[in-house]
């Protein structure tokens, strides 16, 4: 099949017959599979329509599948939202030095594909004193010797966990939704890969698995959540979940990006808790949210803790 792309002038008879044979084989494949797991996963119900027993069964099956595929035990949690919690995120732009440690900390934690490379966090670099709000003058692929650079400032962007998420409205199959703790999640076994959510997202936060996600086994984080960092499939959309596998535990743990930040620019907490750090930032700093004109109500607050 590799050859098709290069041979633009036409395909010879042999290649053509090979292609046709392969086509028939592909069609026959599901029927010929020995294991029942293909059909079980084909007929798997929508996550929110399953009861706890059914979820457990699915997780057992998936853990077996992963063990077979990776030769490693991967634990899939299904922790539910904690009542009385609404997660919020704060990002202090005056501190961010553009080091991208959050980007790689996220990749390490959340089992993103290394080839093709998928990042959930994008750090944008802006030149001081130039246009900012249309993002068009930002640079995503900056690569200096050292950060921070005197004449630039940086703005990391990731899923803003909107209270009014356009992606959720767009999804034709309800494969993505906002849970009561405010996290927008995706059922990777229900997503059909139409990518309408990606067109709908104003923050470029959603990533598609264009190819089969690849990641060395030793780099797979075995502590996962069904709706979060478990290994994904080719042809489905994924995105930041505020590290649902950590933050929904009790006691929880900060998202990986918060932990990775060397300058403490990242704040995370419960918006419903008046004593939380995030509430302090919102109430005492000059906060703004990205593209507020779109009324998406992100729960991701940018602020400036100090001047400069």
């Amino acid at each position, binding site marked *: 099949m*590799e050859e*098709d792309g290069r041979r633009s002038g036409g395909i010879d008879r042999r290649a053509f017959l090979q292609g046709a044979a392969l*086509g028939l084989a592909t069609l026959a494949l599901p029927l010929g599979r020995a294991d029942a797991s293909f059909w079980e996963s084909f007929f798997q119900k929508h996550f929110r329509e399953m009861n706890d027993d059914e979820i457990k069964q699915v997780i057992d099956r998936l853990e077996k599948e992963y063990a077979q595929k990776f030769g490693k035990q991967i634990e899939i949690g299904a922790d539910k939202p904690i009542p009385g919690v609404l997660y919020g995120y704060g990002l202090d732009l005056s501190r961010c030095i553009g080091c991208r440690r959050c980007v790689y900390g996220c990749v390490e934690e959340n089992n993103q594909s290394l080839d093709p490379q998928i990042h959930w966090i994008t750090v944008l670099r802006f030149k001081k004193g130039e246009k900012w709000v249309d*993002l*068009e003058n930002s640079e995503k692929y900056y690569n200096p010797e050292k950060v921070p650079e005197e004449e630039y400032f940086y703005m990391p962007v990731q899923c803003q966990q909107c209270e009014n998420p*356009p992606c959720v409205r767009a999804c*034709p199959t309800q*494969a993505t939704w906002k849970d009561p703790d405010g996290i927008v999640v995706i059922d990777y076994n*229900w997503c059909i890969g139409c990518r309408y959510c990606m067109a709908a997202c*104003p923050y470029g936060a959603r990533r598609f698995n264009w190819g089969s996600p690849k990641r060395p086994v030793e780099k797979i984080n075995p502590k996962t959540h069904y709706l979060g960092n478990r290994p994904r499939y080719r042809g489905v959309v994924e995105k930041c979940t505020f590290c649902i596998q950590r933050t929904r535990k009790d006691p929880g743990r900060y998202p990986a990006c918060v932990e990775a930040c060397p300058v403490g620019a990242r704040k995370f907490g419960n918006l419903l808790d008046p004593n939380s750090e995030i509430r302090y930032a919102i109430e005492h700093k000059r906060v703004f949210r990205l593209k507020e004109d779109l009324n998406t109500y992100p729960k991701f607050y940018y602020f400036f803790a100090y001047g400069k």
Partner: protein
Amino acid sequence: MIQAIKNFFIALRQIAVGNKKYYLWVSFLSFLALLGASAYIGQLSRGLIITAMRDQVSWGMYISNFTFLVGVAAAAVLLVIPAYLYNFKPIKEIVLFGELLAITAITMCILFIIVDMGQPLRVWHILPVVGAMNFPASLLAWDVVVLNGYLIINSVIAFYVLYRLSIGKEYKMSVIGPLIILSIPWAVSIHTVTAFLYNGLSSRPFWNASILAPRFLASAFCSGPAIMLILFQIIRKLSVVEIDNKAIFKIAELIAYAMGINLFLLGAEIFKEFYSGSIHSAPIQYLYLGLHGHDKLVPWMWFATTMNISAFFLFLFPKTRENFTTLNMACLFVITGVYIEKGMGLVIPGFVPDTLGEIYEYTPTTQEILVTIGIWASGALLYTFLLKLAIPVYTGKLRFFSKTQLTAARDIMTKLVATIRAETPLDEVVKLMLSKRLTDMAVVDDSDKLIGIVSERDIISLEVGQASGKTAADLMAAPTGTVPESFHIQELGKVLASRTANLLFVVNENGQPVGTIEGSDILKSLEDIRRE
């Protein structure tokens, strides 16, 4: 049931048999379709990474073609409106071919959506009840509803009309009239909903303009009919179907108005974007002027605009639209112009610059182009097959067996309960007739073959006492009123009409009598069929 199966094979044969040119055309299209299929298999095994789409530009050539084809499906409705509302005869005759085109275009739309999906096996998740259709929140769910509905409506209309014609009957307006009326707003809805699909996204300023749906409709009313005009000319050249020039010129005139509106709307959009010059004009700048040195679409867009403007004038002036050279040129211009403008020219700038300001220039890969060609070839193949079936039905060359032709003597006859031999005494014959209530008796030989008939009239005509001692052989008449059991009702009627007796004997292929048929049997089954 048997009738339906028989008719299915007749239809199949219609598609399978043709002249050399037909086979050449079909093999050419099949070759392209298989080429596309093999490219798609490559995509299935490696993922959409074989396309040039990426997170920045997450829809590309497939969705562009989908968008264009939703517009083509408009063709049918543009023809339906004057045909049925204003009873414009020359167009009415050819609406059927427009509807078949709509069916083809929607089928291609569905194929383009399927090949664009990352997980095509999960397509059932989008259905209501079995899946989890996000209706009414998701515009994509709306699109699934309206497109499939449109496919069903047009299929029902087209196949009902074809079916009635094929059994030699007029179609009933009381049956399809309401469907035709429904199909008009429905066609508008498929364009509107597809436009809203883009329009509703506040994240994409290029699409988030309320002019999008009207522009979408206007351009659809250009490209669809232009394709029809070319198809009509091919149809009338290759078949005996007559398509009035008046119809062709009328449609050409309608395209001129649609294109005029389309250009006006484009102008309105260009004015707003460039005169106000906010940051949201970046995509249109990218389209027509290039943005930060990225200008891959610029020559295409100017080419498309030139095509559309030239076509507008060619369609506008009666002199050029009624000359087939300039008319066909104009059609090709419109198809190319709108294909670029409503295809990649609509979809790509939605993503350039992307929501974080990045400019990723998208150029489809060879595999993507092959899959696209494959779907176009499949569409052409489907339309060819539909025409191959529809044209002979339409011209009256192909008629399916109707029920009257399929009901045979064996189905309506009264089974024979008794036969007699030549040597059977008449006394016994009379007893048999009376006990079994028969008016005529079949006389058979040793091998049960029918050799004669003894009727009650012949016996009555004998004087009293004459019967004794006589046998059937003395009275029997030659078996002329016989019919094979395979004769259908119409043939039976003809035979019966030519005879004075009201009874026919049915014989099998060995000449053995198996039943009888009376005039009333035929009348009854004709009445049953009529009532159906």
